[in-house]
């Protein structure tokens, strides 16, 4: 067999090997990706740390509007809660104390109640003497936008308006203090 023919044959062989490797690689990658996705993806489009916190506008018990974007430059301690949720109730006094301590340092607390009646929320606020604004998410739209599942969930928004941290479950007073420190403007 001539040298040329051999060369031609070799290059053909090489091309074929490259083709096959590429096709197999693509297929295997696709399967791997699918398995990975099915194993991990429980919920799509979950908010993640570092994301821009979705803006919202809610009304508090006094009738004042609270727009998240109005607090840019301040850290926002966003607490989602309900009156029936025991851990929520437990952390409220601590939150209130820490709010007193940090409110002058540019940390705002917004307690977002999930679609309960004015009466229930008002009596709760009165009972605990809450000094931070309590807003009610009547249509659960903010809850939906933030993809809140268990209560309580706390979302820390830094002065730039990005999510600094997401905490699900009850927090101790030390936790709360530390978190407020985290989002305190420089």
């Amino acid at each position: 067999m001539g040298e040329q023919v051999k060369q031609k044959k070799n290059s053909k062989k090489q091309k074929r090997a490259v083709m096959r490797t590429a096709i197999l690689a693509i297929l295997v990658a696709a399967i791997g990706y699918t398995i990975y996705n099915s194993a991990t993806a429980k919920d799509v489009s979950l908010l993640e740390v570092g994301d821009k916190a979705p803006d919202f506008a809610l009304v508090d018990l006094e009738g004042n509007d609270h727009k998240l974007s109005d607090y840019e430059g301040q850290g926002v301690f966003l607490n989602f809660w309900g009156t029936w949720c025991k851990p929520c109730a437990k952390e409220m006094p601590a939150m209130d104390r820490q709010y007193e301590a940090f409110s002058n340092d540019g940390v705002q607390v917004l307690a977002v109640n999930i679609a309960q009646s004015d009466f229930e929320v008002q009596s709760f606020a009165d009972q605990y003497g809450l000094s931070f604004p309590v807003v009610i998410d009547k249509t659960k739209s903010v809850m939906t936008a933030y993809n809140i599942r268990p209560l309580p969930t706390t979302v820390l928004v830094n002065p730039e308006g990005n999510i600094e941290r997401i905490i699900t479950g009850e927090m101790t007073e030390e936790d709360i203090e530390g978190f407020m420190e985290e989002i305190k403007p420089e």
Partner: protein
Amino acid sequence: MENLQCQCGHVNPPGTKLCESCGRSLTEKDQNSKLVDMRYEGTARRSQTYNKSIIDKIWNFFSSVKVGVSIIVVLLVAAAIGTILPQQAFVPATTETAIQEYYADTYGSIGRVYHFLGFHDLYSSYWFIALVGMLAISLVIASLDRFVPLYKSLKNQRVLRHPSFMDKQRIYAEGPGAEDTLQKAETKLKELKYNVRTDKNGLLAEKGRFSRWGPYVNHIGLIIFLFGVMLRMIPGFYIDESLWLREGETRAIPEVPGYYLESKNFELENYSGEGEEEVFGEALDRVGTVAKNYQTDVVLYQKPEDALPGADDSQEVVKEFPIRVNQPLKFDGYAIYQMDYRLDELKAMTFALTNKETEESLGELTIDLIDPEDIYELESGSTVELLGYYPDFSGFEDGEPQTATPLPNNPGFLVELTTPETPEGETSFITIQNTVEPLGENDYKLAFQSVETRDVSGLTVRKDSTLPILGLGGLIFMIGVAQGMYFNHRRFWIQQKADGTILLAGHTNKNWFGLKKDLDQVVEHASLPAYTDQQDEIDKAEKAEKEGEALS
């Protein structure tokens, strides 16, 4: 493996059975058989050409029909195993441990083993997905490996084939011919819609070659379908959320930014078995009630794009629609389905302020359980002040009434009753079952009168952007199946030797009956020699042999 050089001089890739050029049999086995194996035109499957590197070995593995069928069978058996016990999605338990307990409690040790092996969630297990993936690999590689050489071989067909190729075709004839035989045959074949090519002393007539692509087309359809299924796992392509919506409520639709849904009314209708439905009477007597319809009358609102979640203003009505089973509400690529319902959740309770002794009523009040008021003033000048409201009262903790959920399943009220006779007020704690008077005996009580209820609709919110891809895959699959199964590829080779002898061979990938019908017409018109079906000859010979054996 070495290349195979045919006697005609053509160099064939290793693994070739019939010379790509003239059609001579290249292996001893084929040379000795009476009929040639025309599958894939006797070309070498590409995978067989090299078997050296690991990549080639994997490639060859997936290229084999045996492996493909094995994957199908394994998949089939695995799918069947998943139906032995219900999958976890159909089980009334949600958490990991609850599911595990359910299998153990309900199905005993079988259930425990089933759960332990992961069969309770078989279809989303990594190995099942991997199996489907292997099937996809097999589909791609086996198709490529066969399609490419077949395509080349059919594209480069030569008109003149070696006589040894011709006489090993199932349909074969040899006999004297006239001068114009070839021309006549050509005219008739063209009339029968064959593509005819001639070369020197021969002709090749061909029809329905595209049917040979059928299998590859349907495999492409399946690949597209599987690709669509894969896409569903990518965030954004697929949404599956559920929403419990109570009558009168307006809720943001989960995962659908900017849209809100209000339930105006939920309705459940059962078959009455009367009037037009009388024919169903007997069936209804046997099974009890059968639902005729359930539907949620909803209003879909949309907020302008710049509106913020939570802001109450400026929502616009997009659509008013009754959502029923089989009639989902569709908008903007989303669909909302009527899936479930719960009837008669408490909505409001009416009480009468009553003197315990005289039973005299000082007036009625209705407490909206969804949005109670602080104080209820009665005409008599009495008031009922709501001190505390516990929608799902679950007992006391440190003397404080507790609520388990925000739903009014078991409402409890802490009230202060003030009447002209008891101006300092009396405190009472009322639940459905009983009344507690924590601060001493009262003169007045709230006597329960009536309750209003509302229904809850179980809705599913769905978006599936992969549907068009899946539909396309299905369509291509069906086209491919029809193309491959309902059309056939027919060919005739006719040659006239120098002495006038006609050689005739015919081949089809299926439906030999149809081929013979075509050929009969040509034979008659062009006075070709009578042909034989060599398969029949072989069968007859075998049969005779068998019978001979039986006799002896």
